[in-house]
């Protein structure tokens, strides 16, 4: 995997298997968000309490903010899916492309990718903690998404205005 800064924003070059991995997790996250997540432990992770010591205030805050947060998180997951599917379409249209060396256009949607990856890693961290004796493949995915997150952050660094 390597991440580059291009004129149109940030580009991610990675192997087909890596693109499929992101796609699977993006689709899962989207489904989790659509499901309403009642009774799902991931709900508390993705939507932490604003008032941990006050259940009444916490509930009220959640009532006012939950739908908007779900919409934002879903929009991020869907943007990631869109960018990955665009590559998949080029790939199936052309026999001459190297499917393991194609650029996913993150463009200027940096925050959607960063927040999406943050959410995926949060859900993964819980699943790793739940797996008795740990789960190597989940841990590998968690670490890989962390490297991707750091890479996008580094590649987009000077595009953020510094208020100093």
């Amino acid at each position, binding site marked *: 995997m390597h991440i580059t800064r291009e004129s149109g924003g940030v580009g991610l070059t990675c192997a087909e298997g890596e693109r499929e991995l992101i796609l699977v997790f993006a689709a899962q996250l989207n489904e989790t968000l659509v499901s309403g997540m009642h009774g799902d432990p991931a709900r508390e992770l993705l939507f932490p309490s*604003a008032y941990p010591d006050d259940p009444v205030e916490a509930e009220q805050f959640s009532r006012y903010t939950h739908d908007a*947060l779900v919409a934002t998180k879903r929009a991020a997951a869907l943007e990631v899916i869109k960018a990955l599917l665009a590559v998949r379409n080029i790939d199936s249209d052309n026999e001459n492309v190297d499917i393991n060396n194609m650029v996913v256009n993150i463009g200027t949607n940096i925050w959607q990718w960063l927040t999406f990856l*943050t959410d995926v890693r949060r859900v993964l961290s819980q699943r790793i903690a739940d797996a008795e004796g740990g789960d190597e493949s989940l841990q590998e995915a968690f670490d890989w998404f962390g490297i991707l*997150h750091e890479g996008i952050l580094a590649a987009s660094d000077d595009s*953020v205005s510094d*208020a*100093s």
Partner: protein
Amino acid sequence: MTTTLEQLDSDQQLQVGSPILWQTVVWDDPVNLMTYVTRVFRSYFGYSRAEAERLMLLVHHEGRAVVASGNREEMERHVQALHGYGLLATVSKEQ
């Protein structure tokens, strides 16, 4: 020159008129990377790199940091935004 009575009056007003201050607190968590937390502080609050890093390190070493204070509505807006970024943030009364 201020009379004693006026002085007393203004002191009272100060006491009565002081609103409770609220805070936005960001908590340490095992998922978020230090560089990301710093970037969120810079981008969302517009803090300088130095200030954002100072706050990030407070979160990292102390487990929490007050990143903003003001009226409650404003703090709830911050917390909602920070939850959008995937940070653990809470609203609390100023101690």
